């Protein structure tokens, strides 16, 4: 039992004290058994408050610390470090969350919130009373990082990590790198095309020995713990014989009898079943669309020197210290009928338009044989849906639409572009692009979400009618050659599986969720799993790269020192009681329970290096012989007692 516990009640500015009567709380707490000091502070996390705590701990010789403030997710580490600096074992410290689960949750009932805060702090005190001083477990870390996804974010993160001295495994599910950036030709920030940027980055990565690029690769599993993960990856073959002669390959590709929709061009064109994703796709060389070609036995026989359908997937395993997810996004795919998509000919999406422009490099546009001179852009397709699933704004699309419009007019002899928008969000310096689009006489028409434009086909022509909020709600009619839906970003289809393998949580918008947008924007709640680029939320290329490099610096800082500290809150077996039944071993997800013989008795023992402290083993023990350190029966039950006791005292 502790004798002198310091309790600090944070007002959090007014976040807590507006609803919780902190003076009342202090008055209740200060006389609790074992409490040596109870103070109210404006910002417990501020430097001056931290200094004060340190002085108190040293001066008053406190043996326990309770900080009642915000969620421990924010500041557990902050106050642990306070304890450490003051010479108090950090495990003698408990943070009580009276903000998120106190003042904020019950701002409608301040008196009850105050009562709840008192009980929660008393529970915290009860816990500190029983706390054991612990030392962190030091483990060695592998200075290598897996980067999942080789789009622009993944490629950049990989190069930077290698530059900073980490070994990198760059894992791409596709057979070629580049992701969405390769599909994007005109980038208003640079003279280079997306393809060129990807080729340049590939060349840099290709010549580095400390980066292993695995394409056609799927992560099958990840085991181990932060600093020492083991990753298992399956590599799918390209079905091309490595020894095949280049001329033969070229000939084969040309003579391939089967064509399928080309998804690189979003089905605007078709491609052969033996193909490279695009002309300069990297890593170079063709691949075989097995499903499409399987039945063409004559062709397969003729080119048996090139094609080998017998190639088998290969499994690779390697050790990593941390991983960065950069699995990107998918363009929103409108359901058939949304603004005539899939029903009216001449309705395409923005990514399709970009490919269309790429296919007509330097010339005038045409779509399905029709010359394109007048286009209607409809904004916010799949974004900002107040009724639909995607409540969020996709961020990049307004700017992309304006930039595309400029490129179309400059390079593709387009005559007129109409932008049907809700709010123009060319934020920051991108406003210049909006300005330029206006000045090239683009017409911007503002519509209301509840009264969207109508796209109709009459006698083979497309008509768009829209009610313009800027012209007294006048109904305007346009007869464009092409309607382009400015589609937003949705999380990539593969992210659910990735989330499953890495346990990375998804947010309300289904993108990967960061711990905190400002404190830890590229970290997830899973130690050693970072997120970067558009898999965390819509971003343009430059922003994706910034977040990728940010994640790279965090990952490198985590693994490059060769060792790190782990939480010592692990499971613990009481060998006196244990009679080895194996129940705990059967439920442990990490194979951390071993049978050992101790004093002629078979008992269970926990492997400290692999135990993650989940506690799944604790309830299954028929003799109640396993506890999680810090979550023992005494601690839990004394906390429960504190929460319920003196029921009438605080009420009202």
């Amino acid at each position: 039992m502790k004798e002198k516990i310091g309790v600090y009640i944070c007002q959090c500015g007014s976040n807590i004290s507006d609803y919780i009567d902190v003076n009342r709380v202090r008055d209740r707490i200060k006389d609790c058994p074992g409490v040596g000091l109870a103070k109210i502070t404006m910002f417990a996390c501020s430097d001056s408050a931290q200094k004060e705590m340190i002085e108190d701990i040293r001066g008053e010789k406190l043996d326990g610390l309770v900080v009642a403030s915000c969620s421990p997710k924010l500041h557990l580490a902050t106050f642990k470090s306070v304890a450490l600096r003051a010479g108090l074992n950090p495990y003698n410290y408990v943070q009580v969350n009276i903000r998120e689960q106190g003042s904020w949750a019950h701002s409608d009932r301040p008196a009850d919130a105050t009562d709840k805060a008192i009980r929660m702090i008393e529970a915290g005190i009860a816990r500190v009373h029983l706390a054991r001083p612990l030392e962190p477990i030091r483990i060695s870390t592998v200075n290598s990082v897996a980067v999942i996804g080789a789009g622009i974010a993944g490629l950049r993160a990989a190069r930077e990590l290698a530059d900073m001295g980490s070994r990198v495994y760059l894992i791409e599910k596709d057979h070629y790198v580049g992701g969405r950036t390769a599909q994007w030709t005109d980038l208003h920030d640079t003279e280079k095309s997306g393809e060129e940027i990807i080729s340049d980055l590939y060349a840099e990565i290709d010549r580095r020995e400390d980066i292993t690029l695995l394409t056609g690769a799927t992560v099958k599993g990840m085991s181990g713990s932060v600093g020492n993960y083991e990753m298992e990856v399956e590599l799918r073959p390209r079905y091309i014989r490595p020894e095949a002669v280049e001329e033969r390959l070229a000939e084969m590709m040309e003579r391939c009898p089967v064509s399928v929709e080309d998804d690189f061009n979003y089905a605007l064109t078709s491609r052969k079943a033996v193909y490279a994703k695009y002309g300069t796709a990297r890593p170079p060389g063709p691949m075989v669309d097995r499903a499409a070609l399987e039945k063409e036995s004559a062709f397969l026989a003729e080119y048996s020197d090139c094609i080998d359908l017998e190639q088998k997937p290969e499994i690779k395993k390697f050790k990593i210290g941390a991983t960065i997810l950069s699995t990107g996004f998918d363009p929103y795919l409108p359901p058939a009928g949304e603004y005539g998509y899939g029903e009216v000919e001449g309705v395409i999406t923005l990514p399709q338009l970009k490919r269309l422009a790429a296919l007509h490099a330097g010339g005038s546009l045409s779509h399905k044989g029709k010359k394109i001179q007048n286009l209607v852009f409809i904004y916010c397709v799949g974004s900002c849906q107040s009724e639909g699933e995607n409540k969020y704004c996709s961020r990049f699309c307004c700017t992309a639409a304006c930039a595309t419009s400029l490129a179309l007019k400059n390079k593709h002899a387009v005559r007129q572009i109409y932008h049907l928008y809700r709010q123009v969000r060319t934020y920051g310096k991108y406003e210049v692009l909006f300005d330029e689009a206006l000045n090239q006489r683009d017409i911007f028409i503002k519509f209301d979400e509840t009264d969207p434009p109508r796209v109709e086909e009459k006698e083979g022509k497309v008509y768009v009618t829209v009610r313009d909020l800027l012209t007294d709600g006048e109904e305007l009619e346009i007869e464009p050659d092409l309607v382009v839906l400015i589609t937003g970003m949705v999380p990539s289809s593969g992210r659910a599986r990735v989330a499953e393998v890495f346990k990375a949580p998804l947010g309300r918008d289904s993108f990967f969720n960061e711990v905190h947008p400002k404190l830890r924007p590229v970290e997830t709640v899973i130690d050693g799993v970072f997120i970067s680029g558009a898999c965390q939320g819509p971003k343009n290329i430059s922003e994706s790269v910034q977040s990728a490099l940010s994640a790279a610096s965090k990952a490198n800082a985590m693994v490059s020192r060769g060792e790190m500290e782990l939480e010592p809150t692990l499971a613990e077996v009481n060998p006196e009681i244990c009679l080895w039944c194996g129940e705990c071993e059967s439920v442990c997800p990490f194979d951390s329970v071993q049978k050992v013989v101790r004093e002629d008795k078979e008992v269970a023992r926990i492997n400290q290096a692999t135990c993650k402290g989940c506690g799944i083993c604790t309830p299954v023990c028929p003799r109640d012989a396993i506890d999680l350190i810090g979550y023992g029966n005494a601690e839990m039950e004394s906390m429960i007692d504190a929460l319920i006791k003196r029921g009438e005292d605080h009420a009202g």
Partner: protein
Amino acid sequence: MKEQERSPKMIHDVLVIGGGIAGEEASLNLAHMGFTVLLVEKDYSIGGKMIHLSKVFPTLDCSACISTPKMSETSRHPNIKIMTYSEAREIKKSKGLFEGKILKKPRYVDEDSCTGCQLCEEVCPVVVPDQYQYNLVGRKAVYIPFSVALPKLAALDIDSCIRCGACEKACPAGSIDFSQEPEEIPFQVKAIILATGYNLFDARKKADYHFGQFKNVIHAMQMERQLVPTRPYNNVLRPGDGRIPDNIAYVLCTGSRDKSVGNPICSQVCCMYSIKQAQLVMGALPMADVTIYYIDIRSFGKGFEEFYQQTASMGVEFVKGKIAQIEEKENGNLILHYEDIENGGKPVTAEHDMVVLAVGLTANSGITAEFINQEIALDPFDYIKPKDRIVNPALTSAEGVFAAGTATGPMDIPDTILSAGDASAEAASYIRRLE
């Protein structure tokens, strides 16, 4: 500490200029990676603009709760040396290294002995407008800059000091030192990160809004100060007469997207901070009406649109129309002129008892003039221009010099953190490549 300052040259891996959130984040990242950092801040305290904010969008957690631990961690880290009230001068590159001087301006208070007890502040007879409270209230000539300043030491503002000597007598530690002179300390680093942040748009430039003339027209930072826990009036008040306002207007795009005042670009944060303040005002003054006058609402970041919709559903009114001019009534109320574009497009007026100008951001890139043999290119709006925005977003036109945060353009805090992370990564790999 003193000894190190007297040493002929401070040698570190990286010089980070600017101790706001971007500079702190970049410094910490580098320190965690094992590099040594010299962090130079021109003001008395690190923390930049963010430390003065109330709560931050879209999560509404308090800004101080995010800033102060970061400030504290930065100041504690053994790899980081902080110099406040200092400026980098005459930066030259020779043989792949950057050399220059740090000008340490006199604080007139001895940093080692001052305990921040504020006794000097109590006795000082001079009162001048407090720049940290955006002139809403006064401060003394010798003062602790603000309550969560770091270092929390007194500073003496020699320009307003009348040299009465009262503080000297009152200081128990004898820390007041009028004899301090500017000091120049040479430094040598391998890379430089510019994190000099931004300036607030000077609202007086938009003459039709009469900021500075009409008492109840304030700018958003002044409102921000009225909403923080350490707020000067302990409530939201009209500066004109100290009344609690009940009908507040937000004028968006004050000094942004406006060629008539020389800033054609969007400031990226004003829509969101206004929406956030509207929510906070609704909390602080439940009876008050809040109206936001906008051109376009730019809630583009993660969770922003949802935050905007939530605010609208709380009853904050959003009106499309830019405020053209503001007039003052005798009772201090304000008449706002705008065109009600979405309802017939009529020129209308609205009366509010307080107006908050959502001022934009402007560039603060004066530091580039201190580079002697390197040119740091600027964009047309005077922000530091990235050399290669797509592939190396933090790299400036000078090799080894990187930019983080709002030094490169307007951006919000989450973007700033990412940008700072990027700058630290690029600087780290640049140094590793040097080695």
